[in-house]
């Protein structure tokens, strides 16, 4: 028995994790979600931009794999922007982000009656990562001469007066890879000095703190928890808020397994020379 507990078959752990996701997803129990200061900061920035009728650039740098974590952020931020009449320009550094960004724009624009071209514009994907950002900083209309639908960006109301990245009131990157610290900060924010915020997967979040402290980033939404906090701020609970139940339980399960592993290690494993 002690050998079994010391080296539990990983498939048993998998079953517990699966049950930890399925059961809380099918049941309802309230959990307190308190917005952290880094999420609040993004919300406050959008409120400020709303007051001056500004424009936000959202870069959808994620793919279907990270959709459950990052898409709720996209939906919440778009809801906030469209509700407060903040103009939005969308783009993707990842080709697989195009479908998800389009889905988010379609869903939220219908909810708020936002008009394409006057309230928002979607530019789609272009290759280049860092070099695309450099081009956008230097000459926005040259880097994106047309939007995804083939309209000229010099003619669309939202993008007509955008000459470079500096002209955006806020750049928000929703990321599942290294586009914030590998591209947006060194090649965009550092050079063109725009206000920059980030929504990213939970695993990326700890890496972003140096940029928060240095002021190169003014806000951070990390993982599903960050998305849930934004949903609380805009008072529109969605999949992130719902996801907090299974996530909380799975975190507890993992902690319990770690404790069990350590208890068994101290009771039996150490005498044997380690587990």
């Amino acid at each position, binding site marked *: 028995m002690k050998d079994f507990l010391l080296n539990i078959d990983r498939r048993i752990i998998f079953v517990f994790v699966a049950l930890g996701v399925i059961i809380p997803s099918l049941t309802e129990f309230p959990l307190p979600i308190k917005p952290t200061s880094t999420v609040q900061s993004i919300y406050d920035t959008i409120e400020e931009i709303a007051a001056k009728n500004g424009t936000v650039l959202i870069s959808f740098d994620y793919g279907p794999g990270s959709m459950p974590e990052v898409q709720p952020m996209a939906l919440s931020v778009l809801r906030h922007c469209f509700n407060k009449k903040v103009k939005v320009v969308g783009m993707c550094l990842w080709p697989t982000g195009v479908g998800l960004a389009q889905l988010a724009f379609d869903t939220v624009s219908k909810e708020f009656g936002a008009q394409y071209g006057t309230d928002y514009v979607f530019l789609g994907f272009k290759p280049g990562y860092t070099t695309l950002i450099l081009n956008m900083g230097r000459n926005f209309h040259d880097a994106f001469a047309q939007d995804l639908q083939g309209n000229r960006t010099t003619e669309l109301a939202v993008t007509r007066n955008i000459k470079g990245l500096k002209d955006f009131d806020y750049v928000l990157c929703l990321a599942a890879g290294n586009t914030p610290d590998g591209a947006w900060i060194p090649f965009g924010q550092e050079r063109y000095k725009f206000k920059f915020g980030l929504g990213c997967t939970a695993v990326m979040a700890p890496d972003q703190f140096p940029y928060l402290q240095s002021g190169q980033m003014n806000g951070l939404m990390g993982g599903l928890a960050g998305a849930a906090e934004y949903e609380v701020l805009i008072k529109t609970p969605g999949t992130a808020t719902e996801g907090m139940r299974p996530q*909380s339980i799975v975190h507890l399960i993992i902690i319990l397994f*770690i404790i069990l592993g350590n208890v068994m290690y101290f009771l039996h494993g150490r005498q044997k020379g380690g587990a």
Partner: protein
Amino acid sequence: MLFLRRTLPLILAFVLGIIGIAIYYIPHNAAQDLENELAKWDRIVAAFAMLLGLYSLMRLHWSRVRRQQAGWGYSSLVFLGFAIMFFLSLFNNGLGPFVAKSSADTDPFVWMYNNVQVPADGTMFSILAFFIASAAYRTFRARTPEAAILLVSAMIVMIGRVPIGALISDWIPWAAQWLMAVPNLAAKRGILLGVSLGAVATSLRIIFGIERAYLGGGES
């Protein structure tokens, strides 16, 4: 031949490397325009390189199918998947390949993306939760005092980042945030400084042609 394989790439690496560094400090329009132009070239090369990738992918799977290697049936699915998506992309919801990409819900390409790629990728990502749990159980042992500190910190952050932490005690989310913003930040910054210096040294080695292994051959 040696000139094309060695000398020319080294000259290009040196010249473009120095130009790249210089442009960073020169705000003049001429320098910025040059950078803009070089950035465009890079994007064009990157776009064409995708064709190379496609060729290699097809070549690999075709050889598997031809030799009927183990799992060749899966390789044939690559061709099926490619053919379907390529056709749907040209079909463009009935609009044809010469107009802007359709984003209508009714577009079969969009349907395939939403109903095949999204769930498939999501499934792969979700496997992480299972793997993290088993890897954490197997390896997170308080073998040394340092490991014990790491273990306790990890548990506080894990519980503090989800609402159940606040339900147990308000202290837990506060402690989680402190761990992220203070000790985590200090460690990350240390690594970041080391990595940045390493990147500077590697870049210099490449610009000055000291590091040549990336050109092939291995000798420096």
